[in-house]
């Protein structure tokens, strides 16, 4: 078994009202960043886990996302990176 650090992005589901993201986008527009379109505010998790290889580490984190880390009704997740640690 090796050690891995798996990063996950969890963001509000596409199409759902994201008032926090909208508030941040509005603030950015106020600051003059007029090129900014939508902003989505979510969570970034870094999970340190033991696994036989990177694919197994990613698979385990995907299952963690489905069962606990993301709510399938309201959130989407993506694996942002898998690194040996």
């Amino acid at each position, binding site marked *: 078994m090796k050690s891995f650090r798996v990063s996950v992005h969890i963001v509000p589901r596409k199409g759902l*009202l994201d*008032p926090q993201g909208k508030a941040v986008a509005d603030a950015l527009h106020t600051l003059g960043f007029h090129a900014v379109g939508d902003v989505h505010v979510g*969570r970034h998790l870094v999970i340190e886990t033991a696994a036989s290889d990177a694919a197994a580490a990613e698979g385990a984190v995907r299952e963690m996302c489905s069962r606990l880390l993301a*709510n399938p*009704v*309201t959130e989407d997740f993506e694996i942002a990176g898998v690194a040996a640690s």
Partner: protein
Amino acid sequence: MKFGIVSFPGSNCDDDAVYAATETLGLPAVKLWHKSHDLEGSDVIVLPGGFAYGDYLRAGAIARFSPIMREVAAHAQRGGPVIGICNGFQIACEAGLLPGALMRNAGLQFLSMPVTIRVENTSTRWTALCTEGQRLTMPIAHGEGRYTVDATTLERVEGEGLVVFRYVDERGEATAAANVNGSLDNIAGVRNAAGNVVGLMPHPERALDPLLGSADGRVLFESVLAAVHA
């Protein structure tokens, strides 16, 4: 009949729920610590309001894995009455006892105010003594109460009459202005298919005495009392 009120670390309305059972209904109530595996003979389970586990990750996401929740799910499966109030509603949704999820209020503000809700369905253990269309005034106190559900489930929720309460204005209309947290279809509370599990964001246990602004919450507790005795 005995009330079991679950206390999670961070629950803060468990004492209000105990008060509702003991002082208002004159019934015994026991607080059930979340690590317990025993409902201690409770006939009715209350998942109270608060911030279980500090709302870490998502409101209710960690609490649903507390040992007591396995017993609560089994009680619900047997047809035992369960009510999830505010944070308890969030926990019941996360646990899959009720459809949907609660998201950050559309206006981003924590809302602490009285609201009017309309009873949409009386085929539940908690609204059996209500009349359809009856308006109830109760306080809300939440930051994450925007009811959300995917389109397919919404069709089922609406089609099967699983909506129990909607936010309405003083005329009883489900307007956008009355929908204080931006919930889908003004939904303030839902039930499971069997009608023994109900969840809502407003606080019936804080609306038991006219001295505190409203006694409209009593009918929910009186309904479950009638249901268990029936």
